């Protein structure tokens, strides 16, 4: 998806004057302190990234991303869509400017020289340059969405939740005072002094950029723009340069501005840091609910125009400062969401026993509206899981947040960016092909023997497990290598200022600053592999209907001439139906990769390294380079995603599905996404049943639920492909039928009923 204002090439002048100045600043300051060099670059980059106020904006700080900069993650869908970390260089975008017809030979040559410089100087390239031979062999490409491979590396520091509560409490001047008082410590070494004084400089820079806005807003009033619109923005900017936020509007303004300048995308416990000022303004009559919603809508619009992914807002949960205030602002946050009705923000609700019913009611209304948000979290179970897997106290665990598709992080205390992904089905595939990737026809992974040598099922399973262990060790080293490369090149000043311990320790984020330096590992195809093993064990080793060699040969040709075998494989037990055989296999496969991953933390000096089972579209892209699998899946089609059954393979109803899901040891991960597709009918006619369903799922230990109410488009797809929607029972009073026992025409008819 494209069209986000922040990335438009039209922001870039032919001369790329900002980029040339930025490159000069970088070169001139290389060899001085890392933090100083970064600050010098930010002094060029950030003022140029602060875009003018547009009609309808109620907050300043519209963000533009330029092709050179420092960010936790930068990506450009027009280049390759891949993440870039720290000092990034979007070469593709600079080339697009260079190739404009308006350029001269001379200007092109100058830009080409800049490109040559940044090709090796950007942090992604520097990380890749540090690959050892094994990493080069097993991670030859970063294009996980295009190329074939078992593992892929990502380069980013995403999803850290900055301490926006501290920002709101102290404001920029308060943060500056904190840094200055820390600088009085005479025992600091030169690097520490460089870091802290650069943080001080950064705060001044941010204040100066607000000053720029102050001037622009003043000029807008002078030009005749409506003072009722501009005036409050101008007053807010003035207040924020002088002190901490005094009202709800100030808090929104400051948080948006800071996050926009950081390029950070996750907002953490927004109900906590906005709650008190919201309640204060509402109680004093300074703010109406409508005004609050309008301000939030402006905040959401800026997010929408700035970013094409993420933007998670956390609400609810235990461990909040003033829960009543937080709940009050949560209602406004969701009301604005109901009005906004866009892909963003990603609302999330931590649900706990005894929580405010009005908040739950509004959350359900959003879901009923088909928004797929909020993502619901089982607060008590999540706290316990975080405590155990991240080895922190219960009190710290209570401050968990989550990002992206629901991966846990400790709010402003940990980083846990998922920087590696594994296609487990591909790991099985290369194991069955003697360490050869049958798509690329080159060595990939370990050669653990011929298929004939796997004369027992246990030998096959062990070989697969060794293969996964081999790749996971490489992935963990990659995670560490990215952190190290970032540390060697930047201080990540914007993040470091608002992450716990960095100022106190006088150390940048990934150079010993952050309290918990963790990592996460995205796994895909977990259920595909588990169901494949269930089928292989039954068909090859128990019933002996064919040999493993025969099966692999048939998978290699995508079942050509063997549709009957495919049907038999499809009828083998599948995860998602409360089947003890299929669920036990899923538990074996999942627990293995969970524990293998967790073991890597110590070796790589990470506070934790954990699997996340998430539900983005990577299962589709990775499936495009995966041959047919023994669960009956056709070649190059999607893999299973998150901790979910394969689409269409769960047909025993919701209770059975949830029992299967609950059998996965989710508490060993840093988050698992559970998708639940429900019909609108269920929400509108049976809200009590929906509530009972969610409460029961959470009682069963399921950590989170991503509930989507089927949209019209999805319902139409379901009517065309009912085989993919076997668990989507449309309820009709007194009607006895299992979806699976009806003809496709009737299945489509049942689905059609839910459109009304």
């Amino acid at each position, binding site marked *: 998806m494209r069209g986000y204002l922040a990335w438009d090439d039209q922001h870039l002048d032919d001369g790329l004057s900002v980029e040339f100045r930025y490159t000069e600043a970088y070169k001139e300051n290389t060899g001085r302190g890392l933090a100083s060099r970064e600050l010098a670059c930010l002094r060029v980059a950030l003022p140029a990234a602060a875009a003018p106020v547009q009609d309808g904006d109620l907050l300043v700080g519209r963000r533009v991303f330029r092709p050179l900069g420092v960010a936790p993650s930068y990506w450009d869908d027009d280049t390759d869509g891949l993440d870039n970390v720290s000092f990034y260089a979007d070469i593709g975008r600079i080339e697009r400017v260079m190739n404009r017809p308006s350029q001269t030979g001379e200007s092109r040559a100058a830009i080409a020289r800049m490109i040559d410089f940044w090709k090796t100087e950007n942090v992604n390239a520097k990380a890749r340059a540090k690959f050892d031979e094994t990493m080069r062999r097993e991670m030859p490409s970063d294009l996980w969405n295009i190329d074939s491979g078992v593992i892929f590396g990502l380069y980013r520091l995403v999803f850290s939740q900055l301490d926006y509560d501290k920002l709101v409490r102290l404001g920029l001047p308060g943060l500056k005072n904190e840094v200055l008082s820390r600088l009085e410590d005479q025992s600091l070494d030169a690097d520490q002094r460089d870091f802290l004084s650069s943080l001080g400089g950064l705060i001044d820079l941010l204040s100066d950029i607000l000053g720029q806005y102050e001037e622009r807003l003043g000029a807008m009033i002078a030009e005749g723009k409506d003072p009722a619109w501009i005036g409050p923005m101008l007053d807010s900017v003035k207040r924020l340069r002088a002190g901490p936020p005094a009202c709800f509007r100030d808090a929104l303004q400051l948080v948006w501005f800071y996050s926009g300048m950081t390029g950070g995308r996750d907002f953490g416990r927004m109900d906590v840091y906005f709650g008190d000022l919201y309640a204060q303004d509402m109680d004093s009559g300074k703010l109406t609910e409508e005004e609050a919603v309008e301000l939030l809508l402006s905040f959401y619009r800026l997010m929408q125009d700035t970013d094409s992914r993420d933007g998670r807002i956390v609400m609810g949960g235990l461990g909040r400062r003033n829960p009543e205030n937080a709940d009050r602002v949560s209602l406004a946050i969701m009301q604005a969401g109901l009005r906004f009705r866009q892909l963003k923000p990603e609302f999330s609700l931590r649900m706990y026993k005894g929580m405010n019913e009005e908040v739950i009611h509004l959350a359900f209304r959003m879901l009923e509206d088909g928004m797929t948000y909020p993502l619901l979290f089982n607060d008590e179970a999540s706290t316990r899981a975080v405590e155990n897997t991240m080895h922190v106290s219960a009190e710290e665990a209570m401050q968990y947040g989550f990002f992206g598709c629901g991966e846990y992080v400790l709010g402003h205390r940990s980083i846990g960016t998922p920087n590696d992904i594994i296609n487990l089905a591909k790991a099985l595939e290369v194991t069955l092909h003697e360490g050869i990737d049958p798509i690329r026809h080159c060595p990939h992974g370990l050669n653990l023997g011929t298929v004939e040598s796997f004369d027992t099922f246990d030998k096959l399973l062990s070989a697969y497990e060794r293969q996964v262990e081999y790749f996971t060790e490489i992935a963990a080293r990659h995670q560490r290598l990215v952190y190290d490369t970032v540390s060697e090149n930047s201080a990540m000043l914007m993040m470091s200022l608002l992450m716990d311990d960095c100022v106190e320790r006088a150390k940048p984020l990934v150079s010993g600053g952050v309290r918990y330096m963790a990592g996460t590992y995205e796994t895909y195809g977990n259920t595909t592999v588990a169901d494949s093993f269930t089928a292989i064990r039954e068909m090859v080793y128990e019933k002996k209907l064919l040999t493993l060699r025969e099966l692999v040969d048939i998978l290699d040709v995508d079942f050509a001439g063997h549709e009957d075998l495919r049907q038999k494989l499809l009828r083998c037990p599948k995860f998602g139906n409360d089947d003890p055989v299929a669920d036990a296999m899923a538990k074996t496969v999942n627990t293995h990769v969970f524990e293998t991953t967790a073991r890597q933390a110590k070796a790589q000096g990470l506070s934790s390294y954990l699997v996340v089972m998430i539900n983005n579209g990577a299962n589709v892209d990775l499936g495009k380079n995966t041959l047919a699998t023994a669960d009956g899946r056709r070649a190059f089609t999607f893999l299973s995603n998150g901790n979910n059954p394969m689409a269409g393979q769960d047909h025993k109803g919701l*209770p059975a599905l949830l029992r299967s899901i609950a059998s996965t040891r989710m508490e060993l991960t840093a988050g698992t996404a559970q998708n639940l597709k429900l019909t609108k009918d*269920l929400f509108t006619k*049976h809200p009590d049943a929906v509530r*009972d369903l969610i409460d029961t799922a959470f009682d069963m230990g399921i950590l989170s639920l991503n509930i989507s109410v089927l949209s019209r488009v999805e319902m139409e797809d379901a009517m065309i492909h009912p085989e993919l929607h076997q668990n989507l029972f449309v*309820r009709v009073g007194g009607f*006895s*039928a299992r979806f699976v026992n009806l003809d496709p025409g009737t299945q489509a008819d049942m689905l059609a009923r839910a459109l009304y």
Partner: protein
Amino acid sequence: MQGIITDIIPFSVNDGPGIRTSVFFKGCPLRCQWCHNPETQEPGPQAMVLPSRCVHCGACAACPSGARGAHGEYDSSRCVGCGLCVARCPMEACRISGMAVTPEEVLAQIIPDRPFFRTRGGVTLTGGEPMFQPEFAVALSSLLRENGIHVVAETGGYAAWEHFAEILPFVNRFLFDWKITDPELHRRYTGADNLLIRDNLEKLCGSGADVVLRCPVIPGVNDNQAHFQGIASLTKTLPSIRQVDLLPYHALGNDKRAQLGLPGDGFSVPEEETVQRWREELQALCAVPVCL
């Protein structure tokens, strides 16, 4: 003791409060022409054949009771449910509807679903006609209640009163069908008049039972003022009726009729606007909520 059921379906949300597991009893004394569970009418096990899977190979033709033809033809009236065709079908197109179970076996199947019942849900006995197997229905209801499970019974009301009297203490709510008010029309479309049914309804209400009246509305059969007035009159004279459920005809039962080798029922599905109009008309007449 054993009963015969066709299925146990979890997460039923339209057959009583909360999340429920429905137990479908096999066998019914009525023959409603629009029946959407036709496989539950005959009391014994029967084969069902999914036409989309049948390749007419004839593997099932050697049927000892002569229910199966050489090319997939099927006459369910001759089927004795022996299951030979199921074993022989290479396409898994055949299955047997109807299994003998004890109340304890039903309970064992339901127990895993119990967490979902929470404070509202439970088990619904439906069918078919639960009261067609009164001893089994009573035994199952009492066992469920002993285990703290909320019990709803859906009934067509056509059974001896003594059976209702017996099950009454174990049922939290009845979903009582009221199909056609005119006794003669009732006989024409269901095979029996409604005098016994009305009598049982009045007695149940007189005993203080919690009753929801379930009214299937079939275009051309009972979508008329006289019947709507009849329903309304019941709600006014029998205060135990807490709600009327309007069940507009749907054609989903025809899929199962085809699986039983029966022709379609020939009724037509009402438009959504018609259904809404029925609800409004009925609500204007009734003393209790009318729900869809």
